[in-house]
């Protein structure tokens, strides 16, 4: 069990670091998708079947497409151009934001109780229980996420659908 975890962790870290180091944006995006698939494998290892398949469906299936389309639509000129920072101010801000995110993540990991126990091979919470929880106590969170996504979708349509008179056929 623990060997499987180490293999999965190495795969995720390897894919993520390769994505960071690759100069080719498409390769980076695809390696990132590999890292997401690795996270799904980790959820499967931990016995959270539903979350693992949702991760696969949402990240590997859908978000990956958004990332790839965005890369293709924004790619300008050569992909192998060296990346330099614009100004000292921007570099400093980048480090502050990245450090802040890292701090929050590390704080969350340190704050959560980590008991040295292995997960059970069969999921202890069934999909039915998950559904009842989502429709009961966690319904407001689900609704808020739904509204947020709908607003984002409408915003994207409003930004994208600018009908100029010369566009008409």
């Amino acid at each position, binding site marked *: 069990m623990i060997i499987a975890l180490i293999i999965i962790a190495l795969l995720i870290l390897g894919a993520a670091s390769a994505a960071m180091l690759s100069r080719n944006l498409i390769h980076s995006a*695809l390696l990132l998708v590999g890292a997401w698939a690795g996270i799904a494998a980790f959820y499967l290892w931990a016995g959270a*079947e*539903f979350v693992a398949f949702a991760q696969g469906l949402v990240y*590997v299936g859908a978000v990956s497409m958004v990332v790839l389309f965005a890369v293709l639509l924004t790619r300008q000129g050569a992909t192998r151009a060296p990346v330099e920072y614009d100004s000292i101010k921007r570099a400093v801000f980048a480090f502050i934001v990245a450090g802040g995110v890292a701090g929050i993540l590390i704080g969350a990991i340190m704050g959560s109780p980590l008991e040295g126990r292995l997960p059970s091979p069969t999921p202890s919470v069934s*999909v039915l229980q998950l559904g009842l929880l989502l429709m009961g106590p966690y319904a407001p969170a689900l609704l808020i996420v739904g509204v947020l996504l709908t607003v984002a979708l409408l915003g994207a349509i409003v930004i994208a659908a600018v009908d100029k008179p010369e566009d008409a056929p």
Partner: protein
Amino acid sequence: MNLETLPLQFRDFIVGLFPTALQWLVHHVLTLTVILTVFGLFFAFTTIAERKLLARVQNRLGPNRAGLPWFRKLKLWGITQPFADAIKAITKEDIVPAAADKALHFLAPVLIVAFSLLGFAVLPFGRNLIPVELDAALLYFFAAGSATELAIFMAGWGSRNKYSLLSAMRALAQLISYELPLILSVVPVVMVCGTLSTKAIAVAQGGWTFGLLPHWHVFTPWGFAAFIIFLIATLAESNRSPFDLPEAESELIAGHLTEYSGFKYALFFMAEYFGLTALSGLGVTLFLGGWQAPCEFLQFIPSYLWFMIKLAGMIVFFIWVRGTLLRLRIDQLTRLSWKFLVPLALLNLGNGAFWALTTEWSGPLVLARWAISAAIVVVPFVLLGRCLTAGQAPRTYRYAA
């Protein structure tokens, strides 16, 4: 000798030949081998059935020359053609463009076949035959299927060819458009059955009225609508005519597959047929009663045979559709999905909820339940159809003078 449990007995016999420590491994390898063999052969005979049936639709004979080696007299109506095709595909030269992204160009056909095979793991082929029993089987099926889009992107981008990339984008637009109605058409089934497990959904469709009328989901108003939406979305998801624009042999020289040759090209087609078969199997499981017999007295035929008969029926239906309908234009394709299928699927979701909430209605209320459920489907279908075709139908044809 019980035909129903024969495959299981056979498996246990083979597994029993090995030492206890290895038995779990043999168990899984055997399952994999059987799935690969059965559906590999199913794929081979689907191609020959498709070629033969299309030929008959087009008033031709179809392939009828391939026989057996050393038995020249025996022609067998040409059904050994797929094996000759396979040997031809393997021995052909594999051309990789000089500028191609070699790794992605190689990975794309491998990944697409691997992902399209994953779906078979959760299909209940018989009463006791299911490779992997999962609580969230439907979610797994769609998660595995959605990864094929990545492989198509890799094929288009890895070829380093503008036209390949453009047609990969077209293919992705189509797949993403039709994933929505596909999944929405399945949700009512989940609502009514209250489970995501394919095994439980197949079991829920058991039973007969008067021993003759099966309780399959397709024979309910919401189930019928969902099944039709599912069929259309399946055609589009597996790039079949009339939605075969990503490949459109006569117009696009096979789209994102332009730069592929030999066995890699064959692998893409293999993945397409595997995807079609897996989705058809899911359709059989969700709407056509899975492995259940259509009548009570027909139960003596083992359940896995019923599943395969229904699966073959679905495939023949898809071949028939290919022989009948013309290819759509890309704007017609996306319009059909977003303006017609998605709203109908959403309404059908409410229909499924209505059906699930009214299970206690009895007596004359049953008639009301069926009438209301049918009205929820039929009225929007007619209204939406009228609105969308206003000003566009009936179509007029103009010919060059």
